[in-house]
């Protein structure tokens, strides 16, 4: 355990996916990569099956919304190699008007509900998902509530505005 360092990991990824995967950084020692939706399944499959890496455990899938960016939706995968005890984070950014990404259920069955949750809250559509329905919210809901355009509080409320506090 613990044989694989971040440098080794980055080198292996660079050898394999030189053009399609970019390194975003290592916040708190967790290698963060960005790739496109065309390669994501290939990258996930390779990370899972490459004998030296064995990222066999899908920790989590979630999304994030940056309304001011051109590619406003990020789908975020956390993988864990239980044999090497290393984690890796993968991000795929999608344009706001084209939120399609291939499903990871072809790699892990456990991705099923994680993707349903992501769809439910962000409206990211996972192409090829066996059962892409809402999971926590009611079925006839129209909005995707975790998007930033849905404020939680009354947007006319002023008592929390930053300028009142000199910010």
């Amino acid at each position, binding site marked *: *355990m613990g044989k694989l360092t971040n440098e080794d990991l980055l080198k292996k990824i660079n050898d394999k996916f030189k053009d399609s995967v970019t390194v975003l950084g290592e*916040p*708190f020692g*967790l290698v*963060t990569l960005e790739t496109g939706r065309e390669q994501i399944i290939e990258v996930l499959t390779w990370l899972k099956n490459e004998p030296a890496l064995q990222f*066999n*455990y*899908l*920790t*989590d899938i*979630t999304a*994030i*919304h940056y309304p001011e960016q051109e590619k406003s939706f990020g789908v*975020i995968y*956390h993988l864990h190699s*239980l044999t090497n*005890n290393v*984690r890796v*984070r993968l991000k795929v950014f999608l344009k706001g008007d084209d939120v399609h990404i291939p499903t990871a259920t072809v790699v*892990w*069955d*456990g991705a*099923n*509900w*994680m993707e349903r*949750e992501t769809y439910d*809250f962000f409206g990211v559509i996972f192409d090829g998902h066996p059962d892409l329905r*809402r*999971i*926590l*919210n*009611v079925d006839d809901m129209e909005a995707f*509530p*975790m998007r930033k355009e*849905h404020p*939680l*509080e009354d947007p006319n409320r002023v008592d929390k505005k930053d300028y009142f*506090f000199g*910010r």
Partner: protein
Amino acid sequence: MQNHPVYTDNDPQTELSTLNLGPTHPATHGVFQNVLQLDGERIVSGVSTIGYIHRAFEKIAEHRPFYQITPLTDRLNYCSSPINNMGWHMTVEKLLGIETPKRVDYLRIIIMELARISDHLICNSVLAVDTGAATGFFYVMEYREAIYEIYEEVCGSRLTTNIGRIGGFERNFNAIAFSKLRKFLKEYPVVLKEFENLTKRNRIFVDRTKDVAAVTAETALNYSWSGPILRATGVDYDVRAMEPYSSYEDFEFEVPVGENGDVYSRYLVRNEEMWQSLRLIEQALAKIEKEPSDIFHADVPDFYLPPKEEVYNNMEALIYHFKIVMGEIPTPNTEVYHAVEGGNGELGFYLVNDGGRSPYRLHFRRPSFINYQMYAPMSKGMLLSDAIINMSSLNVIAGELDA
């Protein structure tokens, strides 16, 4: 095994009966529904519906300063709230780069392991109830009460604890807390032993649980299982051992693993984990003796609220208090993932911060949610009574399921 036939023939009766198991049913231990298609007593297919107590914590968290998110985490797995609270505190501490003193780490371990005991205690004793043995449940419940009394001494509340603060605890452990803890450590092993005697080799209990819902390690990993139910399949993945947090690396403990991944293995793993938790608490108590007894939080005035008497009488404390409450203190613009071993498995906090007073995005990796998705597929071909036992051994907590 003769007791638990799993039917595999593809020739069901032409008319199946539909059974709504839940949303409120004593056997579901929470509010969630399974619509089962039954052929006699055998489950042909099932559809899980969840979300009945979804409270949009991730959305609410985007509007709250860090210290106000702790009460939200209480309500995830409410059988072991302190683990959620401390997991959140440690996530924020990791983000802010706060180093906690050893004594704080050890005190946290005491509380987290007590929470683990109370979580596993409920799960195992309710499993016994579902197999028909109510005695054990009433017997051990008294000791969950004893654990809640210790929480009460430390933080003032019992179920939704909101225990600790970013940087440590809001107050030191008092003498009553320690004496209650010592009393618990003295009395509980006897009770746990007796509970084990009641169930471990009980013919009825073993017949009902052994070889029920056996899961292989490959399937469990494929479905991202974590916690005792993953370890019951033989995978020794425990966050406490793999990525020690809160100074778990200073402690000696074992990660129990099962063999078959069936309900009985899960029961055994949880039982053994309670013994290991007791070991950890004993060690932590011994270690605390060697640490200065007045330290219960890190020295981080930027993030740790000063005591109220100082706020009223001391300018500096007043300023810090104001700055913390109004969120005036800059925080790093980065992202962090921190995982703790919760009662049901890897409880992860993925926090994306934009430097403001509240998270830009906070995602809870909730073990119950991820563990439970296999329930409907794995129930296929099972008897209804076995599916009920299987559900209680998964220990699905509705609060953690729905967030």
